[in-house]
């Protein structure tokens, strides 16, 4: 058998779903930005426009989630298991971090806690977990 050239069906599938995930994530980020800045900058807190943008944001979020599940399904089984284990690890780390981070202002170690910081913990933990698990299983 000759050596395979060019992308395989798996690689084409992953690339395709990754592109769609990028597209829907970008749409969600854009609609979130619009919801954050639009009422003040563009439509002066007009309720019907804000409600429309909230609905658009929810729809974009749902489509992003759907795209993520499709991306996960397009992976091969080792990739999928790696991502699922990374998600489990991220859930645990986030739970521990959220509890302690929420307690810090009460015990006067922080003046206030910003919930947005939890998103950074989620993102960084997930990326590190995927990389660590993948490298540990596939290192030559």
């Amino acid at each position, binding site marked *: 058998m000759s050596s395979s050239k060019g992308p395989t069906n798996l690689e084409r599938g992953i690339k395709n779903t990754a592109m769609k995930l990028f597209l829907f994530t970008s749409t969600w980020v854009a609609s979130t930005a619009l919801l954050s800045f639009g009422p003040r900058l563009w439509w002066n807190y007009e309720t019907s426009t804000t409600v429309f943008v909230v609905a658009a944001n929810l729809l974009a979020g749902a489509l992003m989630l759907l795209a993520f599940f499709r991306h996960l399904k397009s992976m091969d*089984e080792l990739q999928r298991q790696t991502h699922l284990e990374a998600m489990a690890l991220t859930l645990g780390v986030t739970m521990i971090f959220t509890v302690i981070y929420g307690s810090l202002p009460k015990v006067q170690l922080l003046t206030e806690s910003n919930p947005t910081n939890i998103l950074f913990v989620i993102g960084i933990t997930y990326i590190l977990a995927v990389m660590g698990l993948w490298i540990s299983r596939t290192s030559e």
Partner: protein
Amino acid sequence: MKNKLKVLRAEQNWTQADLASQLDVTRQTVNAIEKGKYDPSLPLAFKIAEVFKISIEQIFSPEKEA
């Protein structure tokens, strides 16, 4: 679980990428299975057996490597 995937692949003169392409998985997955770092799912084990035209038991066995 131990397996004879590396030996079987070498007998066919296939690279990991060749086998991965036939199994529709990544080369890294074939490498992880060969090294015993990952046990494939039952559907993938059946697919591997089909590619080599032998039974699953002739490729995978439950004992650990000595």
